[in-house]
C-alpha cells in the first residue's frame, strides 16, 4: 500500500512535469507577451530592451530550462502585468475556487445520487422521465448560458439573488448551481444505471426474500455496491469542476483561480498561467490518487499494486 502511494506520487510529479512542458511551449506559441504589459506607444528600442531583460529573446530551450529550474523551487516568477509573484496571486485565489468547487461537489452528490436512485426505483414512471429530462438538460446546456439565464431570472426579474460577487451565502447559490448542473446530471444518470444494475442482482433478491425491509435493501446493500462507480467519477468530476470554474467564475465575477487563468491567458501573462496550471494539475492528480485509494477501501477485492 505504502509502496503504491509512493509510486503514485512519483507518477504525479511526472505528470505535472509533462503538463508544465506542454503548457510552456503552447503559451509561447501564442506570441510576444511584451505588448500586453507595456503601453502601446513604447519605443522599439525600449521594447527590445524589455524583451532582453525578461529573456524573451533567448532561444526557447534556454527559456524552458530556466523556467523549469525556477519552477522546481516553486518560483514561477512575477506576473508580467501586476508586479506581484505569480505564486502569490494564485494562492490568494485558491480558497474561493475550492469553496465553489466543494459546494458544487456536495450539491451534485446530495442531489444527483438521490435523484438517480429515485429514478431507478421508479423506473418508467413520470418522475423517472422528469428526472431524465432534467439530467439531459443539465448535461447539454452550457454553463455560460445557464449562468446568464439564472442571473436574468433570479436577479433581474425576481430580484431574489445578487448577480455576482463573493461573500454572502446568497452569492454562492447561483455559481454553485451553474457549476453543479452538469455533475448533478451525470451523477443522476450514473447512479440510476448502476442502481438498476445492482437491483437486478441475485443477492438483492435474496435479501428481499429474507424479509429485509425495502429501505435496508436499497440504502444499505444496493447502494454500497452501486457506490463504486460513483467513487470513480467523483475523482474525475474534480477536474471537471476546476475546468468549469473558468466559465462560472467569469460570469459571476467570482474571485477565483479560473478567472485568473482566463485573464492571464488573454493577456499572455505567462508566469501566472504556469502557476495556475500547476495548481490545477496538482488537484487533478491528487484527486485521482484519492479516488483510487477510496476505491480500494470500498471494494476489498481491489488490490493496489
Amino acid at each position, binding site marked *: 500500500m505504502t509502496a503504491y502511494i509512493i509510486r503514485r506520487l512519483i507518477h504525479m510529479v511526472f505528470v505535472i512535469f509533462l503538463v508544465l512542458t506542454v503548457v510552456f511551449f503552447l503559451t509561447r506559441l*501564442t506570441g510576444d507577451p511584451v505588448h500586453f504589459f507595456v503601453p502601446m506607444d513604447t519605443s522599439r528600442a525600449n521594447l527590445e530592451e524589455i524583451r532582453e531583460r525578461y529573456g524573451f529573446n533567448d532561444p526557447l530551450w534556454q527559456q524552458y530550462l530556466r523556467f523549469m529550474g525556477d519552477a522546481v523551487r516553486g518560483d514561477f516568477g512575477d506576473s508580467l502585468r501586476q508586479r506581484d509573484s505569480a505564486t502569490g496571486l494564485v494562492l490568494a485565489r485558491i480558497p474561493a475556487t475550492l469553496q465553489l468547487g466543494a459546494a458544487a461537489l456536495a450539491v451534485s452528490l446530495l442531489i444527483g445520487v438521490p435523484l438517480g436512485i429515485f429514478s431507478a426505483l421508479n423506473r418508467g414512471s413520470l418522475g423517472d422521465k422528469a428526472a431524465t429530462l432534467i439530467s439531459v438538460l443539465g448535461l447539454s446546456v452550457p454553463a455560460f448560458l445557464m449562468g446568464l439565464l439564472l442571473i436574468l431570472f433570479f436577479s433581474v426579474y425576481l430580484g431574489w439573488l445578487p448577480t455576482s460577487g463573493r461573500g454572502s451565502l446568497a452569492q454562492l447559490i447561483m455559481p454553485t448551481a451553474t457549476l453543479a448542473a452538469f455533475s448533478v446530471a451525470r451523477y443522476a444518470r450514473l447512479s440510476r444505471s448502476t442502481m438498476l444494475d445492482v437491483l437486478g442482482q441475485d443477492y438483492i433478491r435474496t435479501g428481499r426474500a429474507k424479509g429485509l425491509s425495502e429501505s435496508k435493501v436499497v440504502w444499505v446493500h444496493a447502494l454500497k455496491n452501486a457506490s463504486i462507480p460513483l467513487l470513480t467519477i467523483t475523482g474525475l468530476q474534480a477536474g*471537471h469542476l476546476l475546468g468549469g470554474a473558468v*466559465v462560472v467564475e467569469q460570469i459571476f465575477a467570482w474571485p477565483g483561480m479560473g478567472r485568473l487563468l482566463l485573464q492571464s491567458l488573454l493577456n499572455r501573462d505567462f508566469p501566472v498561467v504556469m502557476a495556475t496550471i500547476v495548481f490545477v494539475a496538482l488537484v487533478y492528480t491528487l484527486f485521482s490518487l484519492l479516488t483510487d485509494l477510496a476505491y480500494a477501501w470500498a471494494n476489498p477485492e481491489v488490490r493496489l499494486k
Partner: protein
Amino acid sequence: MADLSSLGNLRHALATGQLTRRDLIKRATVLGVGATIGGTLLAACEDDGDDGEEVDDTADAGQVDLDDADDDDDDDTVADEPDDHVDDEDHDDEDPDDSDDADDDEPTGDRVDRITVGIGADALTLMPTAIVDWTTGIMISHIYDRTVNYDPDDNFAVGAWLCTIEVIDDLTWEMQLVDDNIQFHNGEVLTAEHFKVLLEWVQDEANESHYLERFQPVEDIEVIDDLTWRVTTSEPFPIFPTRLVALEPVPLEYWEEVGDDELANNPVGTGPFMFNEWVRDERLLLDRNPDYWKHDVQVDQVEFRFMPEFSSRLSSLLAGEIQIVKDVPIDALDTVEDNDEARIESIPSSRVNYVALVNNREGSVFEDVRVRQAINYAVDVDAIIDGIFQGEATKMAGCLSEVNANVNPDIEPYPYDPDRALELLEEAGVDPNELEITMDAPQGRYPMDADAAQAIAAELGRIGITVNVQFNEWGTHLDKIVNRETGDMFYLGWGPALEAQGTIEFLFTGDSTYSGYGDPELEEMIFDAGRTVDPDEAQEKWDEIQEIIHEDAGWLFLWQQHDIYGVAENVEFTPRADEFMWMGDAGPRNS
C-alpha cells in the same frame, strides 16, 4: 461566419431602403444570438448522453462567450494633451478654500450613500504613475489627485488641478500649487517637494515605471519654494502638460515609513476618496474624504466591483446592484432605457476608429494615393453610423476628432461618391473587379467592430472590390500589426487622443506601425511641429499636417467612438470625452 455575411446582407437592405434601422438591429441581434446558441448547442451535443464511463473533463473549459463587445481589459491608453491652454489659470474657478466646514452641518440627504461601479478588471497596482492601464488609472485617480487635468469646460484641454503650469521658455516649465494647504488623507501637507521626488522615482529605471519613457526629455527638477517647482527639458517638449496629467503625488513621510509595497496596497492620497479596502479580483472600497480640498464630495462611498463579463455587469445594473457601467453595447441600449432603474449617458469619446490603408509596403495597392482616396469615396460612413451604431458614433473628417484640441476644423469629410471612386480607380489603372484585398479586424475590441468591418467590406463590394475580412483575437491582431503581417487594410482604434502630438507623431512616423501610412516629408513636418512650444505656431503646423493626411487619404477615416454608460436613475454622473470615469463630482439625482 455565415451570420456575419448575412449581417452584411442586412446592411445592404438597409442602405437600399428595404429595411428600417430598427429592423436591422433586431435582425442582426437575432442572427448574432442565434449563431451563439447554435454553436454552443452543437458543442454541447458532444457530451450529451454518455453515462459516465469516460469523462471528458475539458468539455466546457473553453466555452467563453466571445460575442459581446466587452473586452475592456484595459486599453493601453496614451496620455496626451494640448499646449495652447496651458497657462490660463482661470478655469480653476472652484474656490479652493478648505471645505472642512462643509461636512458637519450638511444633511446627508444631499449625498449618495454609495456608488458601485462595475468595471471589467482589477487595478494592477494602486501606486500612481507606475503602470499605464485605463482601469488602474481610474481607480488611482479617485484616491490621488492629478497634477494637471483635462478640463471638460475647455474642450478637454489640459488645465490646472493641483498645480497651474506655465511656460518659462522653450526648455523650462514652472508649476505652482493652487493652494498652500492641500492635505493628504493622513494630514501630511502637499508641497513642491512631493512632485520632485515622485518624478525622480519615475525616472529611476529600477522602478520600471511605464512613464519613464513618457518623461524622457525631463532633465532637471527644481524646487523653488514650498509651492513652486520647475522642470528643465533637454529639448522642446510641448507635450509635457499632457504627460503631467499622470503624475499624482504620494505622501513622502508615509512612503518613507512603510515602503513601496505598503504604499501600493494601502494608498494615502489627496483625492476625493480615502482608501478603505482592496480585495483582489473582488472590489476596491473607498470612503468619502470629508476634507477634500477642491470641493464637497457628494458620495459617501465608492465601490469598484470587478466583473469581467459584460452581461453580468449589465444584469447587475438592471437589478439595481450597481450604479454605473461603461461600454454598454449598442444592442443593449433599449434594454437599459426601458428599465426603470437605469438610463443611458453617452458622449463622443476622444478614441478614434479607422481602417489603415497600408501604403508603405512593397506591392500594396494602396501605394497609389488614388486608390486610397477611392476607398474613402466608396464607403458610406454615415450609413454605417446610422445603421449599425444607431447614431452612437461621430464621423471624423480627418485623422483627429472634434474633441482633439489641435483639430483642423476646416477639413471636410470625403463625401460618399462611388462614381468618383470608380473614376479614381480607373485613373490609377486598377480594375475594381480584379481587386482582392484582405482586411484584418478585431472582434469585440471596439464597439460593433466586427459588424462595422463587415459593412465596410460590403460597401467596397458594391463597387466591385472583393474585401476578405479576417477576424482576429485581439492578441493576434496586435501581433499581426506589430509584425506587419496584416492584409493591406486593418481596423484599429486609438485613444484617448486629445492633442495632436501624442496621436500624429506616434501614428505617422517611423514605420507607422499602427497607422500603415507614412511619408518621409510628412515625417519631417511632424517632428518639427512636435518640437514647437509656441501654441499658435504649432497649431499652424498641425493644421497643415492634418490637411496633407486628409488629402493623401492616409486612412479610411471612420469615427470617434461614443462612450456609452449605463447609469442608475438616482445618480448624477457626467461622462467625459477623455474616458476619465470619475465619481469625484458625481452626486444624487432628483428625477
